[in-house]
């Protein structure tokens, strides 16, 4: 028990230690959290009327961002798989960072979903024995189950490893290995289910397509490693944790071919919609060309498509993939932003036009909404930063139980003579 207490203390005190750059990053995130707390208060008191959603476009930036966080959370298994299934030595230690990233993004996503709900105070209605959990009819209940389980799996997997490393004991393989394998299988599952929440709606012609899970998984394969590469490059620049070039190379290959598959998925979807060009293609046409002059999403559509293809072509070039301090992070940042912005401006908002009764609408996000989204992101990055920092302390061997012992020995000497 004493070991556990000192683990918690040492882990988190290391997490809060850092240089001026580290503190200014934490401070930067705190600004969004402070502003976000106020706008959250506004939304809770005055309701969702403060955001841009309407009866025509009922899904807003929260859900759009949630889908993106699910991308990254699911893709974090791409760091775990090479380590455990392909036994790559260079990634053995990094696998747990993947779990931390999954954890950070899945919790951010769950917070975003709470913002989406009109009565967050009534969420207890979903707790099976207290309320009524409409399982297995409602797809949303599946999503709640898979997200919660994924969060718990990663929470246990990561902190169990940290604790064992901290006290210097070997891992119990009979417990740990199955846990990791289940977590790895669960990653894609959260994404397939999230796609099913969308594609289960027959009225949403743009979503009611069998390629949606494939689109989501390939976007996850692109945006997730893009985030992870940026995080890894920062870690190896500013901390003592060693991350080999071979790891970055593997991740950039994964991004490259995920983008390749994504383009194929888009092509298949566009072809199937546009060749017969029935009413089912109306949303897509609205995105591509606008409707009677209402063309707010047209620039978004074409920029997103061009940037996805452009990133693919750029990454085909080995020089760019190997440019760890310049071009690779830049391309990764572009992929991150494109897939993030693709969510509201191609996947979600235009899909609601035409409405079931034929209405075309444009979505206008409000300040409260944007601020709340930034709050969720800042919260997510804050948790992620602190946990990663603590994790690095453990992985580099700076934070261990034995490091703490000399201190207590001194104290013991002080008393004994």
């Amino acid at each position: 028990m004493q070991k556990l207490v000192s683990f918690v203390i040492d882990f988190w005190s290391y997490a809060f230690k850092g240089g001026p750059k580290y503190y200014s990053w934490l401070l930067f995130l705190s600004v969004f959290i402070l502003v976000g707390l106020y706008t959250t208060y506004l939304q809770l008191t005055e309701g969702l009327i403060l955001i841009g959603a309407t009866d025509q476009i009922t899904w807003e930036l929260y859900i759009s961002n949630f889908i993106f966080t699910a991308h990254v959370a699911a893709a974090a298994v791409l760091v775990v798989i090479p380590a455990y299934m392909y036994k790559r030595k260079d990634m053995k230690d990094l696998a747990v960072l993947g779990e931390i990233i999954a954890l950070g993004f899945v919790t951010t996503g769950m917070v975003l979903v709470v913002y989406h709900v009109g009565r967050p105070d009534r969420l207890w209605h979903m707790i099976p024995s207290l309320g009524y959990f409409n399982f297995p009819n409602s797809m949303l209940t599946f999503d709640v189950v898979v997200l919660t389980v994924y969060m718990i799996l990663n929470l246990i997997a990561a902190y169990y490893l940290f604790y064992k490393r901290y006290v210097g004991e070997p891992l119990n393989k009979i417990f740990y290995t199955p846990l990791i394998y289940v977590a790895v299988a669960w990653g894609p599952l959260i994404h397939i289910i999230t796609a099913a929440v969308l594609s289960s709606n027959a009225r949403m012609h743009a979503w009611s397509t069998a390629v949606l899970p494939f689109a989501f998984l390939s976007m996850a394969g692109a945006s997730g490693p893009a985030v992870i590469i940026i995080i890894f490059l920062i870690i190896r620049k500013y901390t003592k944790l060693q991350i080999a070039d071979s790891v970055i190379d593997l991740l950039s290959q994964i991004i490259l071919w995920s983008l390749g598959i994504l383009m194929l998925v888009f092509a298949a979807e566009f072809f199937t919609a546009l060749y017969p060009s029935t009413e089912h293609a109306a949303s897509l046409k609205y995105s591509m060309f606008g409707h009677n002059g209402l063309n707010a999403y047209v620039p978004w559509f074409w920029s997103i498509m061009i940037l996805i293809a452009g990133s693919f072509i750029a990454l085909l070039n080995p020089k760019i993939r190997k440019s760890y301090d310049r071009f690779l992070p830049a391309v990764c940042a572009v992929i991150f932003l494109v897939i993030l912005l693709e969510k509201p401006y191609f996947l979600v908002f235009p899909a609601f036009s035409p409405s079931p009764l034929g209405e075309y609408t444009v979505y206008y996000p409000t300040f409260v909404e944007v601020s709340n989204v930034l709050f969720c992101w800042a919260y997510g990055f804050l948790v992620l930063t602190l946990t990663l920092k603590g994790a690095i302390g453990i992985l580099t061997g700076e934070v261990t139980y034995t490091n703490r012992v000399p201190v207590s020995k001194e104290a013991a000497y002080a008393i004994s003579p």
Partner: protein
Amino acid sequence: MSDETKERETGDVDEARRDLLKHMGIASMAGAVALTAGSADAEAAVFQEWFQSHYELMSEEEKQECIERLETRYTEEYGKKTTVSNAPALKDVLFGYALDIQKCIGCRTCVHACVKENNQTRYDPEIQWIKVLKMEKGNFSFSEEKLDKGYPETDRLGNFGIQVGGNAYSPVGVSGETERYYEPEKVPEKDSFYFPVQCQQCEKPPCVKACPVRATFREPNGVVVIDYNWCIGCRMCQLACPYEARRFNWGEPNLPPEDMNPKTHYYGNRPRMMGVMEKCTFCLQRTREGRAPACLEACPVGARKFGNLLDPESDVRKILATKKVFRFKEDLNTYPKFFYFMG
């Protein structure tokens, strides 16, 4: 469904739920509930309401308590004696609605009668459960000049090679676009058809399937209802509905006391709160008493018919037997009990 009945039969489940609720962290939740604060009593009522179970899962006493609590709160809030009925579904009745699109003149009297009857929010914005779509009839734009036009342009196959004729993309009849924000001086406008849409009370409602907490369900008379106190506001039902029938209370409803209809039903027109879904219930508070829905009573041209689908002598059944009847968006297999016909 079987789970639900099972739980209802075994009283100890309900017992356990109540006990658990009592022991939950009351203080931590208080903040969220107190947001809709009024006077001390109303606040206490809202607080107790927050702990209440799904209405269908309540015991008889709990139901009675719940109804009394609501009546007291509404009476105080709106300053007039309000009744909240919990009249049960009628025996051997399946409600159906039929609308004569040939007669409808697009006057929207039904829309406003509905708002008046069902206690919707009145401003910022006003919620309306019925939408009337206007469609141009007889519009056509075939032209002689386009006979040999089209795609691809004439090639070595001559005019026989055209895949897409020059007269494609010309709307014909009422197949053109619809408009729901029309504001003419007089209705009906020349060459216009009107197509009112409200909740179709599907026998296989996609909205019910999508609800994660079963706050919305089909009651025995075939009407899809919502427990406004159980809805968590996730809007999955709104996303699933192919008829745009569901309306969300994005903000706190604005219902002036003088406009409030004090004769209400738990699943029907009782005033709603912020963050919950609402929709047409075929005026449950009226129809369970054998009265006609407000929209039907208001219709000046008699385009609307309502009745029991199980009774061969009812208006609706006679219409189904003798008129040209269709269901809206039949391809979606939702099996609406709202029928359109041509008189």
